[in-house]
């Protein structure tokens, strides 16, 4: 890549930051060039963000329809899935799926609820609120 080819079209996912890319300058030497980001990066990052938003939104609809528990919504809202929440909270995946049942979720002992809350970085009371 040439110094002049370093993308600078801007990538809103970077916010105020710039990222360092390596490119060849006029003397043929490889140097670090700060980049405002490219459309390619923005496209793939936003695609990933949107996919997680869509999962959270679908979960929210299920919760509002009484088919799932707020736990499922908050899990996706924190950009996790069942496998990751299981790793972080130490609760087995099949148990987490069971806890998506609204009635079961209501009856969860405070001890388990606290584990989920800790994993998701929120309070147990927040975790119980409907999204």
């Amino acid at each position, binding site marked *: *890549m040439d110094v002049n080819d370093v993308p600078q079209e801007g990538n*809103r*996912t*970077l*916010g*105020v*930051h*710039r*990222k*360092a*890319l*390596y*490119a*060849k300058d006029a003397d043929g*030497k*490889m*140097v*670090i060039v*700060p980049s405002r980001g*490219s*459309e*390619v*990066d923005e*496209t*793939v*990052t*936003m*695609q*990933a*963000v949107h*996919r*997680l938003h869509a999962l959270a939104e679908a979960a929210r609809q299920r919760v509002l329809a009484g088919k799932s528990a707020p736990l499922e919504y908050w899990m996706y809202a*924190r*950009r*996790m*899935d069942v*496998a*990751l929440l299981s*790793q*972080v*909270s*130490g609760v087995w995946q099949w148990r987490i799926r069971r806890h998506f049942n609204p009635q079961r979720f209501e009856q969860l002992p405070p001890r388990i609820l606290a584990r989920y809350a800790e*994993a998701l*970085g929120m309070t147990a009371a927040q975790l119980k609120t409907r999204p």
Partner: protein
Amino acid sequence: MNPIATDFQHRHAAHCESGSATNLLTHHGVKLSEAMAFGLSSALSFAYLPFIKLIGFPLIAYRMPPKFILKGMKKPFQADFRFETFRAPEAGMRRLDELLAQGKVVGLQTSVFWLPYFPEDMRFHFNAHNLLVYGKDGDDYLISDPVTDQPQRCASADLQRARFAKGALAPKGLLYYLEGVGRTEVSPEAVRSAIRKTARIMLGPIPFIGVRGIRMLANKVAKLDTSEHSLNYVGHIVRMQEEIGTGGAGFRFIYAAFLQEAALITGNAKLAVLSDRLNEIGDGWRDFALKAARMIKGREAFEPKKLAGMLSTQAEGESEFFRALKTAVA
């Protein structure tokens, strides 16, 4: 008390681990660039690990696993690194304050998701981020995060959360610092042996590592259908290649910069020629990313076979390149 390592210099880098290692060693008087740290630790690689899933997609890495660069710095500089992990978060924070009070610059492994200064859209659950702490001001830690162009600040509660995040690659509060270094310059022999190691890794026999890994990924992409899920899969590959602090083209450009320096240190002109060749290969990776992004945006019909073809070309190019690299330092 507000301790601060006054003579510490923050330098912007492409990758968090090579950047942290470089800034830390430079602080101790070593003459070192990020590209040299990356090459000297033989960090360049390719790995396609379908059995490790990141929110549904396989792990695709263009470098060796976390901590490989830090450990790779030990021998060439006789660097006396100290690593400490903690069971209790409070103990981990106390130890950090203690080291800062001694005027040390301290490296940390953290999660990206819980760092407030990261842009919202970039915060994913990735636990092997590296940064340096060079001081404290009230409740705020002064942070040199190599992938941001300016130094940052982070409140202690947030930093504690980021250091003790759980899950895959959990940092367990890992902190590291340098007790001292035995060498401050790079030796030609260390450069040659690092290059040999990289060629060995890239041409190795394991089907999902190195050139064979690229071929395996190409085969997988060739079999994709044209669903939304496949588009997400392709986007995921590009994200791992371009977006996760790689300096462009999945670390190929950084390594090209390293080969230029290596040519000067070893006096081997073949390495400078190979640096140019790797630059072209890097451009090939960028073309792949661009093509994929156009398909995701719907500006071009989504044809997985076309993308797979480009990946195969990359595999052939790299196979030939690393063979030539191996002969150049033999």
